[in-house]
């Protein structure tokens, strides 16, 4: 992961776009859902960005993941303004953001809530790093901050998530041990 090279001075081909969608689609949907309570609206925001790439309306970005995150954020924010509704945690909990490999539904909801409670700038770095496989360099470029700032945000976010998720991680370790 994090191997997306620069693609400049050309349009992205359909296969390139679909490959990016396979690689980053789920994480981008998760990212969009931080702004939009409605899953359908979040999916629409992600699709809108990829469809522009498929139609060649957007030149091939130098760093596609960074572009995708920026574009999805802008599109989601526009959609949120248009819908004129704020996103509440209660609304978010009705919809599953994650599927846990071990099927721990309680842990899924805990992570969902912990992620929703993170400050936006910390949350986006975590999503990029953990679920999109981007390096901290790429996350810094995508968010328009220095590497140090991105790394700092990431550390803070990880610490907060760890506090929330520690019981579930311990359960898992205990289950493995015996």
């Amino acid at each position, binding site marked *: 992961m994090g191997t997306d090279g620069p693609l400049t001075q050309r349009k992205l081909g359909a296969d390139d776009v679909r490959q990016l969608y396979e690689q980053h689609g789920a994480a981008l949907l998760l990212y969009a859902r931080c702004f939009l309570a409605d899953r359908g609206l979040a999916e629409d925001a992600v699709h809108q960005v990829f*469809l522009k790439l498929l139609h060649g309306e957007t030149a091939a970005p130098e760093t596609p993941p960074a572009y995708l995150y920026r574009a999805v954020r802008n599109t989601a924010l526009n959609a949120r303004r248009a819908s004129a509704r704020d996103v509440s945690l209660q609304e978010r909990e009705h919809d599953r953001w994650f599927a846990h490999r071990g099927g721990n539904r309680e842990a899924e909801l805990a992570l969902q809530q912990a992620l929703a409670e993170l400050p936006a700038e910390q949350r986006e770095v975590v999503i990029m790093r953990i679920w999109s496989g981007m390096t901290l360099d790429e996350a810094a470029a995508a968010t328009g901050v220095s590497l140090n700032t991105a790394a700092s945000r990431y550390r803070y976010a990880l610490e907060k998530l760890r506090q929330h*998720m520690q019981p579930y991680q311990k359960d898992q370790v205990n289950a493995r041990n015996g």
Partner: protein
Amino acid sequence: MDKRDQQFENFLREFTPAQPRALPEQPAMLHEIRGPARVWQRRLAVAAGIAIAAAGAAWFASRIPASLPSKVVQPQSETTQIDKPAGKNPAALMLTKFAREDPARFDEALSATTPTGLPRFDRPNSALHALAQ
């Protein structure tokens, strides 16, 4: 980044974000998704045109009977007697002949033909009824 962080990262990666629905396959479908507003605008315009044409036809059809003069329903015998010109009425010719040649027969014939040969004024809907009053 220490080992503890890496373990926690791996733990987080056990949670898979929900997959979005697949991107459309065909360019036509993409066009359909991009331009639903245009497609619906066209459909709406056609539907509005049809509705206006249908409403206009219905209005026009409803206006035709109203614009025609309504027929006055009257008994057949009464109208025919009134409309027939006297010159073509055999009874009138006969009465004229009797009046010139034989006044006595004229009176008989007049009495006999009056109920059918002359316009009646004793019916409630008759035009002459009003005049007679």
